[in-house]
């Protein structure tokens, strides 16, 4: 197992290098001049020149890249051009928020996706199946930004049940924290629920067709037990894997939802940084999310092995 993880980590290194090059190249390709953005309304030419010099923006791009990557390797991800805050501090302060949102969204997604998936697999071809399908798919097909605003309008403005947006750290006020995260988690979660539901459904269908389900029934077990013990246990393997992958995506993917609910997480950070040409932040944060994503992939593989006795014992 350790060997395996070790090898996977080795494989991740070239991936990370490609990510860093890609991100670097991508934002160098972006139109616009970060210095112009930084220099403000007045655009003092002297200041422009100074900033250009300071951030070595006139160096050849490979030189810039190596300068950045070598300092990144020493743990220095640079300083936000916009706010002077070290990128590492930014990442550290946003990471818990992002993780919390991801976890809550995942809970919502699992709570919706898995039961509907099971029900629609068991009731395949019936109205229940179609209804569950349509409900789950509706989560996928409503754009997050729109659903978000709808919810704010209804729940916060009209009914005044939950705060409209913002973020309160759980250390400050746990209850308020949960209340503020509820809507964004719901918006994000419903989007994922559809894919979880579909995968649960097809995994369950696949498993329900398998011979050992017939064996379980031949033992006289009742349907409920067959479904919840024998079938679900096996269907869980792909679901767990998928969940970790989705979680990896969530770590950085909540761009619009964070925007709407003004949640100070990674998504909002990156988008703002892209629009402000805050290079150091874009690079640092994307690199960090990539690490998270790769880690989640690794975790997915490890979990896959762990929940799958066939592989666990081979280890």
């Amino acid at each position: 197992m350790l060997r395996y993880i070790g090898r996977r980590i080795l494989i991740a290194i070239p991936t990370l290098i490609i990510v860093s090059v890609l991100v670097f190249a991508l934002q160098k390709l972006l139109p616009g001049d970060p210095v112009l953005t930084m220099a403000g309304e007045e655009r003092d030419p002297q200041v422009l020149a100074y900033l250009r010099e300071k951030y070595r923006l006139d160096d050849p791009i490979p030189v810039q890249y190596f300068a950045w990557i070598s300092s990144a390797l020493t743990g220095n991800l640079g300083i936000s051009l916009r706010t002077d805050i070290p990128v590492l501090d930014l990442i550290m302060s946003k990471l818990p928020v992002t993780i919390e949102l991801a976890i809550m969204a995942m809970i919502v997604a699992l709570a919706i996706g898995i039961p509907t998936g099971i029900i629609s697999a068991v009731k395949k071809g019936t109205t229940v199946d179609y209804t569950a399908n349509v409900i789950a798919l509706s989560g996928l097909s409503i754009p997050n930004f729109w659903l978000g605003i709808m919810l704010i309008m209804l729940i916060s403005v009209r009914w005044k049940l939950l705060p409209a947006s913002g973020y309160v750290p759980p250390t400050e006020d746990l209850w308020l924290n949960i209340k503020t995260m509820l809507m964004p988690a719901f918006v994000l979660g419903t989007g994922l629920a559809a894919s979880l539901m579909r995968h649960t459904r097809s995994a369950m269908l696949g498993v329900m067709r398998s011979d050992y389900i017939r064996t379980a029934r031949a033992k006289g077990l009742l349907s409920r037990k067959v479904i919840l013990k024998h079938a679900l246990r096996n269907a869980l393997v792909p679901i767990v894997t998928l969940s970790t992958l989705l979680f990896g995506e969530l770590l950085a993917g909540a761009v619009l939802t964070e925007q709407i609910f003004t949640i100070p997480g990674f998504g909002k950070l990156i988008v703002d940084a892209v629009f402000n040409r805050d290079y150091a932040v874009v690079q640092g944060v994307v690199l960090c999310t990539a690490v998270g994503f790769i880690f989640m992939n690794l975790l997915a593989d490890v979990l896959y092995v762990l929940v799958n006795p066939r592989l666990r014992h081979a280890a």
Partner: protein
Amino acid sequence: MSVMPSSDIILEGVGLKKHFGSGGLLSSPTVVRAVDGVSLGVRRGETFAIVGESGCGKSTLGRLLLRLIEPSDGDVRYEGRSILKLNKSELRRLRRDLQIIFQDPFASLNPRMNVGDIIAEPIWLHDLASGREKRERVADLMRTVGLLPTHADRYPHEFSGGQRQRIGIARALAGDPKLIVGDEPVSALDVSIQAQIINLLEDLKDRFGLTLVIVAHDLAVIRHMSDRVAVMYLGEIVELSETDALFDNPLHPYTQALLAAIPIPSPANRQPKALLQGDVPSPAAPPSGCRFHTRCPHARTLCKEQHPALETAPDGRQVACHFWREIQGAGAGSISAPPPSAALAKRLALYRTWRERQDKPVATSP
């Protein structure tokens, strides 16, 4: 290795080895010795059978002989020339001469090509014919294997297992091969269909002067079809012999056990059997010495320690056992194939007559 004069040998494997390094996703990598030092020679025009239990390396050997996979060691010679060093065009020529029929009629045809195209592909590839001529050849081939040429535009899923196997055979024949390897060509088929395919293969062999290498695990089929048999156990040949001699007097204890295990289709002759105990060991960790010693009723300490070589017995048979001389005859007569009962014989004869009569008016070939 073979005792026969080499001019008679069409295809020869010399010291073939194939080791699969199963990547060891989680554990340390294990090496599966699928084929471990096999030498054999296939004579022109014969039907050569390879038998053995599941996982003993039969398919791997078959593929090695066609160079569909590269051997880890050893050589394959076709018409006396090594086929491992061929250049592109020579290899292509070789691919015409040596063909394969697969076990699984459902997996061995491209589901997205119609039957006509499947059969025509070797013709197109080797530039044997084109246009009208090609279509005629395809129709001919289909007729040859007992398919209707009008079905050329159908897809494999529209055919039954037996028919698909015929499609596979037609395709194998399309390049005018000299030798066909059948990797369990009838194992997946029902008895009645199996009989049809066996007959077809025999007819084709006679008609086109083919050499057949049949991989199988059904000993009855082998006895019926083959001239010589190689018995494999865990990647090695343990006995190689003329078919009748092998069935009449198996030399190797494994062959003896194999024959003993066959159920006899005659309720009147039920008899208790000496059964082989245990499972086939994993080819990733084969036992030391004689690989069969873990299950062999005659095993002694020597067997555990020393690997027996394939010896040639006086009558030309080959066997890999330290004590084959002593246990000779232990398995003789293990197969008592009683003649069919009078009633059955009579009705079978009747059945044959009626079948022939019925087929005659529309019979075309063969």
